[in-house]
């Protein structure tokens, strides 16, 4: 191996695989440690997450293209150096870079929060956490269906472990349903992949998108069926009605740091729907253009309505957080459907902005809920009693938390809670409001204005915000004003991650102009799939280049 080849090995183009390698190495390394050495494990996890954040921010900066590339640079990593449609490849564009940054931003607060005690309530928390991140990052980066399946399974297997972390009868029961639903969804995923391969003869997403216009009329219904079956798996993951009944109880029962991380899992489903919708069913794909948009729209609207009803009917704050997840992913799926039907670039850009803001907010909400419910007083006991009538699960015995307690804990918690309520309900000035207003204004200005679908979306979006506001204000008043004077025993290390997430949301508001510009460029890149397709198909193998270099010497 000569010097240049050695340099290649550590060169910046290999950075693309780092978001997958970092967590898998860190997770595997921790398996050598005894499980009681939690501080060392925590250290390794934190280093890995910070590294991942640095790498993904670097990738994000490098995925910004210029005019000729449609504002979207495709980074391609050809594993094993096989020619493109046959080999396995990782693809980086603006959207996947954005998702990578979001995942690593969520992971650090969740880890810090877990270090206050939750990581000690079960086996191998840190390794599972790392493998979950590996699966999530891999799903964002992969460019072919089968590896998407493999990374989905890595992510799901780790999430099963994290879901059950801490054990207990209620958690195991919720986890049982969660696993059963996801296993069946994975089988649908496989059927879809097999059908696509059988009909089109490719597993590469870009290759499929390229071949979509030329598929014969005879085969087209089969390809549609395959992608629809595939879509079921992603809709289950995204929690779209009627495939979402497992979600609120599973997320309610998961330990708070796991639930905070699960906030990104629904977004993985949304991400794949976004990616596939704009690749396979792009306007240029002949008769397939916009296929499935109606179903996605109805599903998204139904999910928002179901989530709103659920959040109003919930007794416990943790259950409300689960329904907030549903409202968020329902909104996104409905917007994707509108954007697929010529909804235009601005609405999709606004939706991406809303996605980042709501994911950060929901993650913080899951962490906050546990602290707030820890300090439940007499009123909460009464609530718990009424919750018991509805068949809600028993409160688990809390371990005594020792350590530094902050003064005015309830004040800080209630300020964070108010900020999150404002964000999730979509009131000014936080990004929830900005995102929703931009979605609505682009609906009114864009080509969709005046259609029935746009008015339905308009109404449901505002009503779901109202439902969220009513539910959160009600529970906030009960928890923070009617509670006992004595606040919960909370450690600084538990409040800091929540405050950090709220701070990120504030930064998102403060810097909304550059962030929105990035989101709009991402949305416009999604509307121009040819850049992605060309970037993947015309990629050169490094061996070819080396052979040419050798020949020219």
């Amino acid at each position: 191996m000569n010097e240049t080849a050695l340099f290649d090995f550590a060169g910046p183009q290999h950075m693309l695989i780092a978001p997958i390698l970092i967590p898998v190495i860190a997770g595997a390394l921790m398996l050598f440690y005894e499980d009681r050495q939690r501080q060392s494990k925590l250290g390794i996890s934190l280093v890995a997450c910070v590294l991942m954040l640095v790498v993904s921010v670097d990738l994000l900066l490098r995925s910004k293209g210029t005019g000729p590339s449609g504002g979207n640079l495709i980074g391609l990593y050809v594993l094993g150096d096989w020619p493109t449609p046959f080999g396995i490849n990782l693809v980086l564009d603006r959207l996947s870079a954005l998702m990578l940054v979001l995942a690593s931003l969520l992971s650090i607060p969740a880890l810090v929060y877990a270090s206050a005690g939750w990581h000690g309530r079960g086996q191998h928390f840190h390794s599972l956490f790392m493998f979950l991140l590996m699966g999530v990052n891999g799903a964002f980066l992969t460019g072919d269906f089968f590896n998407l399946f493999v990374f989905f399974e890595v992510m799901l297997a780790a999430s099963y472990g994290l879901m059950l972390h801490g054990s207990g009868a209620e958690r195991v029961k919720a986890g049982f349903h969660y696993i059963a639903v996801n296993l069946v969804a994975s089988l649908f995923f496989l059927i879809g992949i097999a059908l696509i391969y059988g009909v089109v003869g490719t597993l590469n997403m870009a290759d499929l998108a390229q071949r979509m216009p030329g598929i014969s009329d005879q085969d087209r219904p089969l390809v549609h069926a395959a992608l629809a079956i595939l879509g079921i798996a992603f809709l289950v993951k995204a929690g779209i009605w009627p495939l979402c009944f497992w979600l609120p109880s599973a997320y309610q029962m998961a330990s708070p740091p796991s639930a905070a991380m699960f906030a990104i899992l629904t977004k993985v489903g949304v991400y794949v729907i976004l990616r596939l919708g704009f690749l396979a069913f792009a306007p240029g794909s002949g008769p397939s253009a916009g296929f499935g948009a109606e179903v996605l729209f109805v599903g998204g609207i139904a999910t928002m309505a179901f989530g709103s009803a659920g959040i109003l009917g919930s007794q416990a704050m943790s259950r409300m957080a689960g329904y907030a997840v549903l409202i968020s992913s329902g909104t996104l799926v409905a917007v994707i459907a509108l954007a697929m039907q010529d909804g235009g670039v601005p609405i999709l850009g606004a939706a991406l902005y809303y996605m980042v803001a709501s994911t950060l907010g929901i993650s913080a909400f899951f962490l906050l809920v546990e602290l707030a419910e820890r300090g439940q007083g007499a009123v909460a006991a009464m609530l718990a009693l009424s919750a018991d009538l509805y068949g809600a699960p028993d409160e688990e015995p809390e371990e005594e938390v020792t350590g530094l307690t902050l003064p005015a804990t309830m004040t800080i918690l209630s300020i964070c809670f108010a900020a999150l309520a404002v964000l999730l309900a979509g009131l000014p000035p936080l990004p929830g409001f900005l995102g929703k207003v931009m979605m609505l204004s682009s609906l009114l200005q864009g080509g969709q204005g005046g259609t029935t679908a746009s008015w339905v979306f308009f109404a449901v979006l505002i009503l779901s915000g109202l439902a969220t506001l009513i539910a959160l204000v009600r529970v906030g008043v009960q928890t923070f004003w009617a509670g006992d004077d004595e606040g919960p025993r909370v450690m600084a290390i538990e409040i800091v991650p929540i405050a950090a997430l709220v701070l990120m949301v504030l930064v998102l508001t403060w810097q909304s102009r550059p962030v929105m510009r990035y989101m709009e460029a991402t949305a416009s890149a999604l509307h121009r799939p040819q850049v992605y397709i060309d970037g993947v198909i015309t990629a050169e193998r490094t061996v070819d280049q080396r052979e040419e270099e050798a020949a020219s010497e």
Partner: protein
Amino acid sequence: MELILALAIGTLVASGLWLVMRPRSFQVIIGLCLLSYGVNMFIFSMGRLRMGAAPILDPSVDIDPTAYTDPIPQALVLTAIVISFATTALFLVVLLAARGFTGTDHVDGKERDS
């Protein structure tokens, strides 16, 4: 052969779905196994059905692609088998834990009537 395979896949998937929708956890897990068998056979059949053809090209003779079978579905099905086996094993552990916690094999942890 196509008919037999189609019938076999259909029977496996139908029985699997029926069992998955039963309220007993043991039936659910057997149903999942049957479903994954059906799905694996389905993936396998997507490479077209051929008898006695090798999936590996022999470079020493003139290569006639029609004489070979498609290797990709075989590779895919191998991965799919491993993954579904692992996740089913994990599910079995959860089943045992749930059985231990609730003392019943009902999927909701209690009988509907009680």
